[in-house]
C-alpha cells in the first residue's frame, strides 16, 4: 500500500469517526447539568440512610454492591487465567540477575516511596467510605508500593513478598470474603448483600454497616490480585527457564 492510499484511507476514516464524535457530543447535556435521576436520589439518601459521607463508595459497595461483586470476580477470573497460562514450568532460582539499581538517590527515595505508597494505599482503603477512595483505588496503591521494591531495588528484594504460597490465599480471602459477607445477609433471611449492621456515626470509621467489611475485602482482593499479576509477568519475562 502506498503512502498516498494510506493517507487517503486515514482521511476518510478520520472524517467518519470525527463526524460520529461531533454528532454524539452535540446532544450531550451542558456542563454541570446532569440528567439521570439516580445521582440526585443517592446524594440525598446515602448519608441519612447509611451515615456514610462518601456517596461514591456507598454506591459501589452497597446500593450496587452486587455489580461490584461481579467486577471483583472478573478481576479474580482474569488473574486466575494469567496464572494458568504463565505458571506451569519450573523456573531457575533467580539468584543474582544483575538488575540492582546503581543510583543511590533512586534507592533512597525509592525506599521512602515504598512505605509512602503502601501507607497511602492503606489509608485510601481504610477511609474509603469517609473521604474519596475505597478498596479498588487503595488496593492498587498498596500493590504499586510493593512493586516499587522491584523497581528501586532488585528482583531479589521483590521475590520474597511475591511468593504465590502467600499471595494466593490472601487473594482468595479477599474475593471469598466479599461473597461470604453477601451470604451472611441470606442466612439472616434477607436478600443477598443486604446491609446488615447498624449505620454507626457519620464521618467516622464506624459507619456504613457492611460497607467497611465489603470495602476491605475488595481492597485485599485487588492488592493481592495485582501483586499476583505483576509477579507472574515478572517471572515470565525476567527469570530464565531451567
Amino acid at each position, binding site marked *: 500500500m502506498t503512502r498516498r492510499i494510506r493517507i487517503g484511507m486515514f482521511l476518510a476514516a478520520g472524517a467518519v469517526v470525527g463526524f460520529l464524535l461531533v454528532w454524539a457530543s452535540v446532544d450531550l447535556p451542558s456542563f454541570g447539568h446532569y440528567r439521570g435521576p439516580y445521582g440526585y436520589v443517592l446524594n440525598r439518601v446515602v448519608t441519612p440512610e447509611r451515615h456514610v459521607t462518601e456517596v461514591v*463508595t456507598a454506591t459501589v459497595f452497597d446500593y450496587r454492591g452486587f455489580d461490584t461483586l461481579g467486577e471483583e470476580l472478573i478481576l479474580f477470573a482474569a488473574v486466575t487465567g494469567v496464572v494458568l497460562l504463565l505458571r506451569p514450568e519450573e523456573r531457575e532460582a533467580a539468584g543474582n540477575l544483575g538488575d540492582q539499581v546503581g543510583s543511590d538517590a533512586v534507592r533512597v527515595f525509592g525506599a521512602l516511596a515504598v512505605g509512602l505508597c503502601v501507607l497511602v494505599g492503606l489509608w*485510601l482503603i481504610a477511609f474509603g467510605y469517609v473521604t*474519596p477512595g475505597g478498596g*479498588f483505588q487503595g488496593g*492498587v496503591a498498596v500493590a504499586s508500593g510493593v512493586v516499587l521494591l522491584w523497581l528501586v531495588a532488585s528482583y531479589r528484594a521483590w521475590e520474597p513478598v511475591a511468593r504465590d504460597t502467600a499471595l494466593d490465599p490472601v487473594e482468595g480471602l479477599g474475593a471469598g470474603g466479599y461473597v461470604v459477607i453477601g451470604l451472611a445477609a441470606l442466612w439472616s433471611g434477607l436478600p443477598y448483600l443486604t446491609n446488615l449492621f447498624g449505620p454507626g456515626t457519620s464521618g467516622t470509621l464506624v459507619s456504613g454497616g457492611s460497607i467497611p467489611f465489603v470495602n476491605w475485602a475488595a481492597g485485599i482482593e485487588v492488592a493481592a490480585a495485582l501483586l499476583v499479576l505483576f509477579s507472574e509477568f515478572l517471572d515470565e*519475562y*525476567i527469570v530464565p527457564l531451567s
Partner: protein
Amino acid sequence: MIVATLVPLQLALLAAVAVLAPAVALARNPLRMVVINGFYNWALVVLFMVFGAPDVALSMLVVGAVGYPLILLVALTRSRAKTR
C-alpha cells in the same frame, strides 16, 4: 466565586491534555513514551480533580499513573533483555 478562579486552571489543564495526548502517540522511543504517558496521566488526574471529581481522579491515578506504566516497564525490560 470559586468557579471563576478555577476556569483558567481548567483551560490550562485542557490545553496540557490536548498537547500531551498526541505527544504520547508520536513518541518514537518506548521509554520516552512511558515518561510522557506519565505526564499525560498526571494532567488528566489534576483535570478530573479540578472539575470536581476526586473519585475519578483517584481511579485515573491508580490505573493511568501506576498500573499501566508498570506493565509497560515490565514489557520494556523484556524487550531490552531480548536485544541484549
